């Protein structure tokens, strides 16, 4: 393996994912820096600002963890160990996280879980599933019209447990669709939705590592992102 200093600089900076990561990590860090340096020093405001700093740090750390987790598997070419994971539970976790991070915006969230009589177990990875739900919910809440609802729904077929995030926001751009499907646009200034698409790229990668798939349906009637993951049937558990 070459040392970093032996690599041509162009090899590093041609990597679109690297550039995307650099931007998406700089933004929360720049925000934290500005909060700290510009803050109003009254006690009440400081508490609110420290909470915000904590949330932004968590966001940036989660992004780095996602990147390292995906990269480690891809670099080692190993299969992700898959175990039964409850889609209902992980969606519930992601929803609660969204409510903690953005109390006001998360009031727009409407959630439909799979009924208790049905098993919502998928063969997957708990961390990855949680992160996928968090990324998609976060994106929808952030970029859709604040006056509209975001609906997260879990439903089942014989083969799959599906989770769909739907919103009435602006049409999902081709760049974001491509990112979910595994292509990060290179060298283009036409980034969509105000970010580099890195979060969606990582979501797509995590779903594929769990042997699932992502589909995007975006148009005048709204945006629907659906994750399909292999279902664990009850008899298979015994």
């Amino acid at each position, binding site marked *: 393996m070459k040392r970093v200093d032996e690599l041509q600089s162009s090899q590093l900076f041609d990597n679109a994912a690297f550039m995307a990561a650099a931007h998406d990590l700089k933004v929360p860090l*720049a*925000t934290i*820096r500005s909060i700290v340096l*510009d803050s109003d020093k009254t006690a009440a405001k400081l508490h609110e600002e420290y909470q915000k700093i904590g949330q932004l740090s968590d966001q940036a750390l989660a992004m780095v963890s996602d990147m390292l987790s995906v990269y480690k598997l891809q670099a080692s070419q190993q299969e992700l160990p898959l175990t039964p994971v409850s889609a209902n539970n992980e969606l519930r976790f992601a929803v609660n996280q969204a409510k903690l991070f953005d109390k006001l915006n998360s009031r727009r969230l409407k959630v439909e879980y799979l009924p208790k009589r049905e098993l919502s177990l998928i063969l997957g990875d708990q961390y990855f599933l949680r992160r996928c739900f968090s990324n998609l919910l976060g994106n929808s809440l952030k970029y859709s019209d604040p006056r509209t609802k975001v609906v997260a729904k879990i439903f089942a077929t014989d083969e799959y447990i599906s989770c769909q995030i739907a919103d009435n926001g*602006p049409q999902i751009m081709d760049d974001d669709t491509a990112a979910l499907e595994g292509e990060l646009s290179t060298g283009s200034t036409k*980034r*969509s939705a*105000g970010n580099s698409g890195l979060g969606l790229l990582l979501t797509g990668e995590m779903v594929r590592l769990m042997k699932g798939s992502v589909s995007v349906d975006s148009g005048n009637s709204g945006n629907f992102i659906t994750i399909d993951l292999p279902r664990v049937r009850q008899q298979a558990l015994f």
Partner: protein
Amino acid sequence: MKVLIVEDDHNFAKMLKDSFLAAGHKVKLLFDGKQAVNFLNKSIPDIIVLDFFLPGHNGVELVHELKSYTDTSEVKVYLYSAHASQIENVPKGIISIDKTKVTPKELAAYASP
């Protein structure tokens, strides 16, 4: 002065708005490029602060759009982005400012006469 801020990150947008209000300016805050274009069709501000990565139009495209209107020679435009040093094709006369090095309060102070 009338300041138009176009910033899709809500945390940063609020800090920018508060900083320019505290500096005594009137502020219009928008969150995407399309809203900004619609706004500029009706009103030309004195100062524009915009991010590079925006929904709709990116910051450089917005500036090109602005140049197509008449009477924009006096408008000061600041491209305020975490990606400032990597942005290409920035039109002449636009001041590119690195968000990771300059806080909103510092920018408001710098941009004020």
